[in-house]
């Protein structure tokens, strides 16, 4: 439960992405210009986002705040606002675990 706290979600610095016709492809472009930490490429990663996840990524890239994305998802999924916010938070956490995004803050009040 996250309650009354300010968070900031940022894209990890190594991430590059492209919006394709059927997916949003996210690539971990490690170490800036080099898309991998290892010489043989064993650590390079990518994710294909489709459907709701691709929509969330799109809205995130457009700079929409959490509440508006959640409101949009509530309409899109015909779900209550609280359920949409929970779902959005779960997606963000999953992305944070993959280091696609970084969530900072949590102790700030605003």
């Amino acid at each position, binding site marked *: 439960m*996250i309650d009354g706290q300010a968070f900031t*979600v940022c894209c990890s610095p190594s991430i*590059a992405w492209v919006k*394709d016709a059927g997916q949003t*492809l996210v690539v971990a472009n490690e170490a800036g210009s*080099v898309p991998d930490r290892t010489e043989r490429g*064993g650590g390079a990663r990518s994710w294909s986002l489709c459907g709701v996840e691709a929509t969330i990524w799109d809205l995130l890239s457009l700079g*929409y705040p959490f509440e508006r994305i959640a409101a949009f998802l509530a309409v899109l999924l015909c779900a209550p606002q609280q359920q949409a916010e*929970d779902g959005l*938070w779960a997606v963000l956490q999953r992305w944070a675990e993959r280091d696609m995004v970084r969530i900072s803050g949590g102790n700030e009040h605003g």
Partner: protein
Amino acid sequence: MANLTVSAVCNQRCAYCFTFDHLGRPGDGPRPLARRGFLPVHSFQDRLDFLARSGIDEVRLLGGEPTLHPQFAELVGRAVGAGRRVVVFSNGLMPDKAVACLEALAPNVCTVLVNVTRPPAGGEDAILHRQRETMVRLGPRVVPGLTIYQVDLRTEYLLPLIAETGCKPILRLGMAQPCLSGNNQYIHPHQYRAVAIQVLRLARVAAEASVSLDVDCGFVRCMFSDADLEALEETRAKMSWRCSPILDVDLEGQVIHCYPLSQLARLPLTTAADAAGLQSAFEARTRHFRQAGVFKECSACAFKSHGECPGGCLATTIRRFRHAPLHMKMRGLEVSA
């Protein structure tokens, strides 16, 4: 395959040159990665050793303009002396001693790819005159090349040039691709169809003169309709859709995937490195980007999924990717996690 850069110096200023990110434009001075103007002869021997342990029997000399290397004849002599075929990528504006050196080689051990793309304006007749002189002297050693860097490029001079000079009746066709910075002139994917129509027209005219087209990397299958491809086959045009690590070895002993991708990754040319290992390393580093292509439809395209087309030039593909940071603030959040 691997190309050896022996010169960062060039006597042309082609707007479409894809070495811009790595070597800088002529007149701008060399970039930090190319502080040297020319490859020292002792380093050239290291490059030959690399080719030998990689099982590559072709020495491909690249620049800049490679024939401007002050010891060009010695480089060629070492390559031929090691039993290798020599391929030179040139603009045809060679010093006389370089022409003489290549002229002395049998055509079966020497190919000179002469880029005869005309500049948009200014001095093109003088340039073409010098290129023609070089091509006449080198005759069957020469394969002329054209880089399409704008739609409706002039091509009417090409077939007479090929007929007059006695070069190979082949026209190597390239399509200008961007370096990652995008600072060179290149064909945008939205222009590909217009280029395809131009290629088809050129192939038909060339076939009437018994000249066939040989297309370089970066072309994509969907540029052409099935009917186009049948027509091209009738002209004996050699079509292929490919984009793979060429391996360009720079003056500093760094290996790059190819010049357009020189800013993506560099690997050192160690005494143990061979071409197969380096290619694998580059393939591993780029494979995630290769899921996409030059068009947003590529990742779901049947030509791509069946392996018929790689989705075009990887530099063009990577330029589609966004790197701008996502940023979202959440205030007063009350959600259950």
